[in-house]
């Protein structure tokens, strides 16, 4: 199975672990991640205003490159996934956006949202299958109690992201089970950690992070996993009351598959 892969800037710098372990694990699972040759930063936030065109172009270029190769586009960072998936939805449904973007890009054939965007977790669930992962696990993380932190960007708005039940998701818990560990559900797993304001309103970010971590601890979690570099940083740097290890989910996957 070969997929085009969009890593995004953070995965090339501060979040190299997220990327590295994803690649190693994919190899074991028989998935080839072909990094796009000339990708640009997606912008990290989806521009909601209807008159924002230029800020969406880099996402369209990535989508177009995957289309040319006839491959699905694999994402890993939550923010990149959110931006690319939503821009793709615009390109499928918003005629005005389609026209303006294509007028600007002057492609051989207009891009109208043909590429399928797949997050790494969706790839594990839908293309590989959690049962297959179970078979490939060599170091099951037996007895480890892990809380999944979904955050906002993978789940909402659910009519576009179509990732999982936005209020009661299960994909990360199923993942945790597949590597032999025990999932711990916390009610704040889909509530915002305040990552966007971590630079300029630390107090607010700290409040949100403390709520998430204390709730996870109360439920008996020993660590928290995430797919988002910003959540990772925020949960780690801005917790004031308690500390829990915050880990990228791919790192645990690689550990279970014996390639860490």
């Amino acid at each position, binding site marked *: 199975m070969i997929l085009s892969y969009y890593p995004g800037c953070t995965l090339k710098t501060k979040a190299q672990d997220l990327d590295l372990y994803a690649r190693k694990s994919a190899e074991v699972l028989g998935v080839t991640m072909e990094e796009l040759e000339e990708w640009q930063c997606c912008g990290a936030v989806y521009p909601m205003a209807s008159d924002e065109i230029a800020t969406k172009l880099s996402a369209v270029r990535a989508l177009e490159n995957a289309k040319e190769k006839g491959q699905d586009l694999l994402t890993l960072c939550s923010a990149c996934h959110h931006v690319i998936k939503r821009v793709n939805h615009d390109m499928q449904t918003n005629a005005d956006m389609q026209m303006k973007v294509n007028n600007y890009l002057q492609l051989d054939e207009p891009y109208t949202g043909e590429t399928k965007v797949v997050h790494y977790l969706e790839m594990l669930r839908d293309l590989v299958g959690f049962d297959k992962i179970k078979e490939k696990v060599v170091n099951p993380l037996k007895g480890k109690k892990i809380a999944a932190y979904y955050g906002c960007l993978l789940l909402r708005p659910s009519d576009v992201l179509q990732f999982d039940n936005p209020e009661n998701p299960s994909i990360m818990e199923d993942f945790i089970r597949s590597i032999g560990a025990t999932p711990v559900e916390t009610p704040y797993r889909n*509530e915002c950690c305040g990552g966007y304001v971590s630079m300029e309103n630390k107090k607010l970010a700290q409040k949100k992070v403390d709520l998430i971590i204390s709730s996870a601890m109360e439920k008996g979690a020993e660590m928290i996993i995430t797919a988002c570099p910003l959540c990772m940083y925020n949960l780690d740097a801005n917790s004031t009351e308690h500390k829990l290890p915050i880990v990228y989910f791919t790192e645990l996957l690689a550990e279970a598959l014996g390639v860490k």
Partner: protein
Amino acid sequence: MQKIGVFICHCGTNIAATVDVEAVTEAIKNEPGVVYAANYQYMCSENGQALIKNAIAEYGLTGVVVCSCSPRMHEATFRKAAQEAGLNPYMVEIANIREHCSWIHKDKVEATEKAIILARAAIAKVHLNAPLISGQSDVTKRALVIGGGIAGIQTALDIAEAGFEVDIVEKSPTIGGKMAQLDKTFPTLDCAACILTPKMVDAKSNDKITLYTYSEVESVKGFVGNFEVSIRKKARYVNTDLCTGCGECTTKCPSRKAKSEFNMGLMNRGAIYIPFAQAIPNVATIDPQYCIHMKTGKCGLCEKVCSAHAIDFKQQDEIVEQKYGAIVMATGFNLINLDQFDEFGYSKYPDVVTSLEFERLMNAAGPTEGTLLRPSNHEHPHTLVFVQCVGSRDTSGCGKPYCSKICCMYTAKHAMLVRDKYPDTEVYVFYIDVRTPGKNFDEFYRRAVEQYGVHYIKGMVGKVTDKDGKLIVQGSDLLENKQLKIEADMVVLAAAVEPDPSARSVASMLTASIDTNDFMTEAHAKLRPVESPTAGIFLSGMAQGPKDIPETVSQASACAAKVIGLLAKDHLVNNPCVAQSNELRCNGCSNCEKVCPYGAISYIEKEVNDHGVREVRRIAQVNEAVCQGCGACTVTCPSGAMDLKGFSTNQIMAEVDAICR
């Protein structure tokens, strides 16, 4: 050549504001055959009708065209007026210049032009009209009520009271419906069981009423006055004639995995069970999905303990065929599934319950025998939060766009009962609007606030989480402009109501229309609220739309009155606009017979005289008493032999020609 009178209605300003009625009158005066044309403010009024009658007498009219509202509204009115003046009622045609013209256009010039064209089409049709004579059909003096909740029971009792036979078909093992599950009823707080169970007993003991419980309608044929229905009596694996309802089997049954439907899944029941102590009929039913004997051949304990020898593992479903003159839809409602509302934590927290579950938790016959306990730990709750409008008034696609109507009042009731029984509790109600239009309803709600100190908060809950065994309810208080985080022991969700899922399939069997929310459509929202547009089908209770018990009972009795009015007749006048087959054109292909939804067409061998050639052919024949004039056969017939009286192909082509002229 017909002598035609044309009458144009102003309908106050409904038509006259958009259509120049004088111009229409002038324009059609010169149409061929028109000998009289006039316009009047309200044609349907007595004076308007007199205008038609006088013109028929004075000008010897042979045809009448009324340019007015939809024929669904007043076609019958004008036909009756013409008949009183000695004209065959089927010589009257309506040109709909209101719904099809004035109401949907803004430009007066365009609308006037269109009204003239519609009038011309109707005139062209009248030229080809022929007098039609209605036939008659008998009325089977027996009614079927589908659904045995309070709506169905009340309708059946009233019909039986008038002396007619009536059958209730109920899909669960007992009648009683949702009302049997309720604790107290607003606004008077009398206990639901005390007022319902006597009615259930009445229904059982009334010799005019036959109960088919644990039964479903399998198929429906026929038409008003003459429905043929087959009812499937599902196998209970218990001989109901022998079963005494002692309940010995239900306590001994070792299979305890099935969730009690009556207790909303809050406790389990045996594989053999009686839904509740006051069930009617008070007999046991075996649930084959959970019965150990039926799955493995072992056990059979119920058979051993039954001193009446009522257990019959070999029992089969039984089909009952019965004829009815009228059918009542009383299929009721359910609360919506809350999978789309997990922000309230319903699937995660046992202490987050629906209102109907809460009824069981407060009910003396419920799983806690009427003591309110937190389902999670069976402890007394101190703080309760009620959330209204969960899934109601929701256009996001997760819920229902309508107001469920009953939640404001039952939530006030719940809040009041909790405070009354447990004065040590704090009770909060999150509301968007409190809607209490009903006799003594607002007074009731105010009593909850003023006398019982229930905290009403204008706002909505956004998320329910938990901490240290408490539920944390995060919601907005819009009046104080605050976000609240209430530590609660229980959260009660007033989930939206929806029609029972069976409504859709039953409605399609009855060819009765339903709306986008699967509620039954009325023949007229204001003037015929308890009848379906399909003749002989009547509506009772929640099947038609959200309503509380007082309203349901009123409507159930209204529905019964309509049914009685029908059953009191010995004959029904048929619609003469039925299909007829031209025997010389019929090629005997049977296509019409196959598409006829009423079974009105049969084939006979008949000698015909085709331009002097006499031969025996296989040709279609329409039973005019059964034909409902739907026209399916006319468009199916490949040889053009089938035609519809009053809507013949020639008449429709003449209308089209007139429009295109």
